[in-house]
């Protein structure tokens, strides 16, 4: 820092205080333009992806497509079983990650003494789990849920449990942030009035952080239903011509159906994949919109 700007033309005096000039220096302008260019690449790819996929898939979209089962004939094939499978997965994932994620986050924020080694192990462990490739969770699900100890078989329950583990670290991390956003004075006030630790948490901290927690849970569920790799391993089938009837039912899901159709050499099936992608993206957009709405509507500024 001590050598800053010695080799450059002096900046006009009015620019030294406050914002330095964006114009004037060619290099500065070029640098800014370069950064804007780099930033826009990601956005452009996203736009191209959405437009081309929509153009590929829109002709195949119809009510019939949404209410038919997979078929060997592209003109008859649909995604009803994939949609119901995905809904089942959402419910299971929500039921697992809300209690487990909130409890873990509460423990880490309100109870854990960070000076204890085991609490640091839990912290690092969660950070690491968040970055473990999702397919590794698929292997875990195959070994423990489908086969081995639980032996659930290739069922929607095994798939839901596996996806729950994939997104559990995300729920824990976002819930901790929501809890941390509640000012300590709220809890201290409750404790000063004679509340126990749990009473302060249950009646003050949790109600105040519900919007943040709900946002995190919805985003996690939406990440879970876009996951494909773990489901491949826990053996969701791609040709399932019926809706799941219970937790022990075989199932398929939207991303799997997309993968299966994308892998077909036949162009007609690729169009079906694009149509299914549109449906999946619409579901994700609705979930994300809901999360953003919750965040804006209910999040309190302290």
């Amino acid at each position, binding site marked *: *820092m001590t050598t*800053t*700007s010695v080799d*450059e033309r002096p*900046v006009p005096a009015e620019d*030294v205080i406050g*914002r*330095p*000039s964006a114009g004037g*220096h060619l*290099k*500065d302008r070029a*640098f800014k333009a370069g*950064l*804007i260019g*780099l*930033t826009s690449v*990601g*956005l452009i*790819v*996203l736009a191209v*992806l959405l437009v*081309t996929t929509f153009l*590929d898939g829109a002709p195949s979209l119809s009510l019939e497509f949404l209410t038919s089962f997979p078929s060997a004939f592209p003109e008859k094939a649909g995604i009803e079983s994939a949609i119901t499978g995905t809904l089942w997965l959402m419910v299971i994932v929500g039921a697992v990650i809300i209690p*487990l994620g909130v*409890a*873990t986050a509460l*423990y880490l924020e309100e*109870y854990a003494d960070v000076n204890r080694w085991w609490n640091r*192990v*839990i912290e*690092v*462990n*969660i*950070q*690491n789990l968040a*970055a*473990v490739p999702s*397919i*590794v*969770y698929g*292997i*875990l699900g*195959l*070994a423990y849920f489908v086969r081995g100890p639980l032996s659930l078989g290739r069922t929607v329950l095994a798939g839901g449990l596996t996806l729950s*583990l994939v997104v559990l*670290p995300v729920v824990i991390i976002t819930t901790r942030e929501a809890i941390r956003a509640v000012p300590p004075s709220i809890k201290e006030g409750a404790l000063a009035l004679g509340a*126990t*630790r*749990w009473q302060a948490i249950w009646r003050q901290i949790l109600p105040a952080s519900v919007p943040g927690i709900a946002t995190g849970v919805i985003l996690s569920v*939406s990440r879970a239903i*876009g996951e*494909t790799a773990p489901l491949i*391993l826990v*053996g969701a089938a791609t040709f399932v011509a019926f809706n799941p009837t219970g937790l022990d039912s075989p199932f398929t899901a939207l991303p799997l159906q*997309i*993968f299966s159709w994308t892998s077909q050499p036949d162009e007609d099936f690729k169009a079906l994949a*694009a149509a299914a992608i549109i449906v999946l993206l619409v579901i994700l957009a609705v979930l*994300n919109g809901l999360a*953003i709405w919750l965040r804006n509507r209910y999040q309190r500024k302290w």
Partner: protein
Amino acid sequence: MFGAPRRRLGERAIAVGLAAAAAASVLVTIGIIVSLTGETLAFFADRAVKVGQFLTGPEWSPLFSDPQFGIRPLVQGTLIITLIAMVVAVPLGIGTAAYLSEYASPRVRKAVKPTLELLAGVPTVVFGYFALTFFTPKILNDILGLDVAVFNGLAGGIIVGVMIIPTVASVAEDAMAAVPQGLREGAYGMGASRRQVSVRVVIPAALSGIVAAVVLGASRAVGETMIVLIAAGQVPTTSLNPLKPMETMTAFIGATGKGDVPTGSTGYKAIFAVGFTLFVITLVINLISIRFVRKYRQVYE
């Protein structure tokens, strides 16, 4: 209002219950390690497989009648794809972070950041579809005139790179935003321009966070499955040509796990042996990244 005096017992029970939930997350890691290690040991207990051959052998064909168990082609495929992805994601991610942190007005930032989050929210199977049906035929083949195969490492790598831009950008931007304003003002006071402040003050000061962002991005690239499974092909090879099909560790696991693999079969055990290798590689990368993140948080908080 606050209940009966017996509550102390309830308080302890709640604390224990919450601690048990937290401990469950550690069980997940233990479960991963135990299941991977167990089957991997079984894999090597097979007389057909030797550890030395596994680590260095140039051919991977575990399901053939004359099976070869050299994991080098899969590791090499993973490294090439990751390298291509990083060539794409490092400049784009860091450039985006620098723009958002140092140049963008609050309004622009408010529009760009959620859009980048959208990019991060696109399921990877969708990126895979895009790479296979649009990027390879239209961009690489038609526009750039490259003689690419239908399945090729280049398209897989580039699209994986696009997928991890938001990861790299958001961690790097956090690090840049954590640089104290006083450092910037000091530089401005000495007559530096905004570009000079960005390049010579903010980026060096945020370096450990930026390194963490890159390392985290690399970890995501190594573990990405669907894009490479769909777009890069399923041909284990030691060829370095990215215009040809190649297979990564993740793609092998996905392709083999697709069918109903019988427990105890060679294919089943091979999934675990490759998964074990993948897990160890990403674990090392993740721990490095966690260390760097901690470093930049310590400096300025």
